[in-house]
């Protein structure tokens, strides 16, 4: 039982990070119908920039974190502005090829600057995050993942539900023509969703880097995990993305703990394929409202 709970907690905390990354991916897809194949590279970029700001530039942890997140946001914004905007209105396949190319370009850049070796981030998390109660131990990074996951979910929930920009973003995702007819700045919404997605990806990258070390290949591979997560959760559902992330995280932890660590990366996909056969729109895909 102890082992079960321990795995569950580990799985959930990693799952939060998967879910957050997937949420950014879904946000881009919902607002601009772009599938971002460079999502994993954004994760890796966040982790490496943070590493360098901390260990090379010697910024204090808090400042390095803030600077990384700001940088990621700006980068996402610029990617939309200079790479995707010229392709608005072009066939989807061009846009997909562009993000695939972007992924290759970013990965090359990362390898060039930081090399392919595994790097480790300094362990800076405060001691109070190390939760120890009886047999259950939550290491600080896992605690950090849970805290950051919950915090960002609440923030985004409030942002999308109540803020004007959040509602504009949802309106664009819902009916782009109608949004345009009311003067919603649709291109700004696209750019904003890229900015937010890159920010969240960078943050997930930092925490995943704390857990497992930073390497370009490992973190880009996490980007691929976004696909089973969003397919599980439904490509259209932001909350589905988060729940899909949690499920994949927990499945991985259980597979690694009970079956074999080498199966970790496979079993979730098997479950996924089975699930897709049963529910092709994902567990939480939007039920199409057909009344209108």
């Amino acid at each position, binding site marked *: 039982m102890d082992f079960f709970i321990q795995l569950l907690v580990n799985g959930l905390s990693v799952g939060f990070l998967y879910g957050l990354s997937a949420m950014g991916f879904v946000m881009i897809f919902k607002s601009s119908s772009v599938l971002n194949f460079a999502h994993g590279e954004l994760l890796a970029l966040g982790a490496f920039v943070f590493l360098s700001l901390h260990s090379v530039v010697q910024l204090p942890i808090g400042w390095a974190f803030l600077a990384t997140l700001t940088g990621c946001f700006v980068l996402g914004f610029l990617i939309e502005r200079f790479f995707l905007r010229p392709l608005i209105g072009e066939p989807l396949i061009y846009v997909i090829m562009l993000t695939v190319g972007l992924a290759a370009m970013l990965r090359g850049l990362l390898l060039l600057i930081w090399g392919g070796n595994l790097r480790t981030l300094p362990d800076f998390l405060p001691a109070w995050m190390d939760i120890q109660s009886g047999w259950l131990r939550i290491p600080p990074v896992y605690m950090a993942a849970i805290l950051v996951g919950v915090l960002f979910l609440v923030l985004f929930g409030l942002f999308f539900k109540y803020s004007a920009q959040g509602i504009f973003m949802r309106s664009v995702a819902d009916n782009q023509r*109608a*949004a345009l007819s009311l003067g919603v700045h649709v291109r700004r919404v696209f750019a904003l969703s890229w900015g937010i997605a890159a920010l969240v990806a960078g943050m997930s990258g930092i925490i995943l880097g704390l857990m497992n070390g930073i390497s370009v290949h490992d973190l880009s591979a996490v980007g691929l995990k976004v696909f089973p997560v969003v397919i599980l959760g439904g490509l259209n559902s932001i909350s589905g993305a988060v729940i899909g992330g949690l499920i994949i995280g927990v499945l991985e932890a259980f597979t690694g703990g009970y079956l074999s660590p080498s199966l970790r990366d496979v079993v979730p996909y098997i479950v996924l394929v089975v699930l897709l056969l049963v529910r092709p729109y994902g567990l939480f895909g939007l039920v199409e409202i057909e009344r209108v």
Partner: protein
Amino acid sequence: MEDTLLEINNISVVYADVIQVLKGVSLQVPNRRIVSLLGSNGAGKTTTLKAVSGLLKPENGRVTDGAILYEGHPLENRSPEQITRLGIIQVLEGRQPFKYLTIEENLRVGTATRWGKPYRKDLELVYHYFPVLWDRRKALAGYCSGGELQMLVMGRALMAHPKLLLLDEPSLGLAPLVVEEIFRIIARINGEQQTTIILVEQNARIALEIAHYGYVMENGKIVMEGASETLKDNPDVKEFYLGGGGAGGPGAYQQPKSYRRRKRWL
């Protein structure tokens, strides 16, 4: 005194660089009036509205000739973001709500042109004209009836403080009683809010009830125009748009404009 708010001078519109849809359309919209644009399916009514609102652009359409002047400023081929901020709001054909947003959230999107400014008073105004929306304000728009949605999209447009409202077939697919109610409210908005309105309709009878002036379109051209009373009595309008009436009666061929149109029909 009738100052002109919008003047369309002989515009041509082409989609995808090859499909010419409007062939020299001109019309004038006096301040604070309702001008109705009538015509059957495919005549080019929606295209005319989109030329004004800038929504041609995302559909790969372009004004290739002529001019659109709004308060004296040229509008041709400006972006919808700019045009909406000048106070021109188009209410799209077929209602187009944000299905997964609540009624009130839908209305808030209407404040996009003046983002960050207070909007409570405007919500109250919309609920004043459309009390049903107040009752349904927490409901998802996707679950509302056609009549409620028509009120919603008109209310959403009102949130933007439009000076010129472009309504595209508000009666489409609604029950006669609901249509009556909606047109009564359109007339009230025009009178009380001083909003100038271009009313596109296939239902000429109800449109000419509330409009001051009307144009009839056919095949991308204006074929007839006149004050609503005049149009209502015109035998051609009666025959084709009001259902029945003096088919081929004397006078049908007296106006050269309607004669040209007849020839195309035969």
